[in-house]
Structure formats: structure tokens, C-alpha cells
């Protein structure tokens, strides 16, 4: 079974991630997921590609901490976080988060918390390629 926290170039399978999450416990009554994908429009400009760069060792360590904290804070049964670091086209998958809990409220809350914290704490940067040139992205809400 794949690691529950990963940084990778290749695309991921949501079905495979959810299956791995479900396999961790039969007490799981609710799974919430977040899929982040690449938009073709940002800040009034067309976007053709997005390139990602990461401080790999720190990013992975921070994502592992995030998972552990989320499991403890929301009493999750399991959680998975996968982030791609490569160049993606509009519509491509970027990040996937799945949180599994006994009941739905904890799963929803944890999923939202993980993606919000990831954006604040994990050293990954994205650069948008537009017809006007390339630009590093400052944080989106």
C-alpha cells in the first residue's frame, strides 16, 4: 500500500487513495475529500500551465506532521495527503486530501483544516504561466 503522505510528480488516483483510507479501519463512517486542481484563469489572466517547486524534505516532514496533528485534533481514524510537484495543465490534479472518521462532522472539519494548514505551512510554491509571462503566485484564499 502506498504511503499516506506523498509528494510526487505523477497524477494520483482518488479511488486508490480512498480505498487505502477505507482499508485502514471498518469503524469509518464518513470520509471527506478535497481535490485541488489547476484553473485556466487567475487574477484576470489566462493560465496555460502551473509549475510547482518544493523544499522536498521539509515539505514532506511538514505534511506528515499535519496528518498526525489532524488525526489527533479531530479524532480521525486515518488521513491521506498527496501533493504533485511538477508542471500541470489546466484541469490537472494538484493535491488530494482524504480524512476518515467515525462520523461526517469530524471528517469535513479535518479535511478543511488540513488544506488550510497546508497552504500556510508547507514549503511549496506555484508559478503560473500566462500569455504575459510567468509569475509566482501569492496566496489565494
Amino acid at each position: 500500500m502506498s504511503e499516506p503522505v506523498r509528494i510526487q510528480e505523477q497524477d494520483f488516483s482518488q479511488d486508490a487513495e480512498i480505498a487505502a483510507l477505507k482499508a485502514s479501519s471498518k469503524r469509518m463512517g464518513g470520509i471527506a475529500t478535497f481535490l485541488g486542481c489547476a484553473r485556466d484563469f487567475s487574477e484576470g489572466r489566462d493560465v496555460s500551465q502551473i509549475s510547482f517547486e518544493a523544499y522536498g524534505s521539509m515539505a514532506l516532514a511538514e505534511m506528515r506532521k499535519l496528518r498526525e496533528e489532524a488525526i489527533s485534533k479531530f479524532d480521525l481514524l486515518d488521513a491521506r495527503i498527496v501533493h504533485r510537484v511538477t508542471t500541470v495543465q489546466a484541469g490537472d490534479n494538484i493535491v488530494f486530501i482524504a480524512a476518515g472518521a467515525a462520523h461526517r462532522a469530524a471528517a469535513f472539519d479535518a479535511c478543511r483544516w488540513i488544506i488550510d494548514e497546508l497552504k500556510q505551512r508547507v514549503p511549496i510554491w506555484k508559478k503560473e504561466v500566462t500569455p504575459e509571462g510567468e509569475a509566482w503566485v501569492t496566496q489565494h484564499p
Partner: protein
Amino acid sequence: MIKVLFFGPVADRVETRVMDIDYTDGMTLHDVTHKVGMLYPGALSIVSFIAVNQEQVHDKQIGLNDNDEIAFMAKFSGG
């Protein structure tokens, strides 16, 4: 030797991704930050986070050890 890493927008500004600085006894993070600021004026203005050995630090007076890895990073934009 202290290994200094730059990523993303900071790497673009300094036009390099890695730099080695000779380690001296008693060296602090402030010493390295000062040196980077002298070599690459303007680069530090977009640095929001500094990590020593993959851990974020806020106190520039902390002492360094030989072979430490320091990263200068702009605000994150993953996800």
C-alpha cells in the same frame, strides 16, 4: 560549511538555488542572513520564512553548527 538553499521566487531573485558559506565558531543565523543580504540586496524583502535543518526558526540569534542547512523562503503557495 553551511549550506544555504533558495526556493521559488527567492531563487529567481538571487539567480541561484544553493550557496555554501564557510562555518566559523560562534556563527549565528543573523550572520548568514546578513551575508545573504549583502550579496543579494533586495532578495530578503520577499523572504517570509527561514528554516534551519528543515525547521522554521524565528530567532536570528540562534547559534549554528557546521553542516547546518538554511533555507530562505517566500510565502508558500501550494495546494
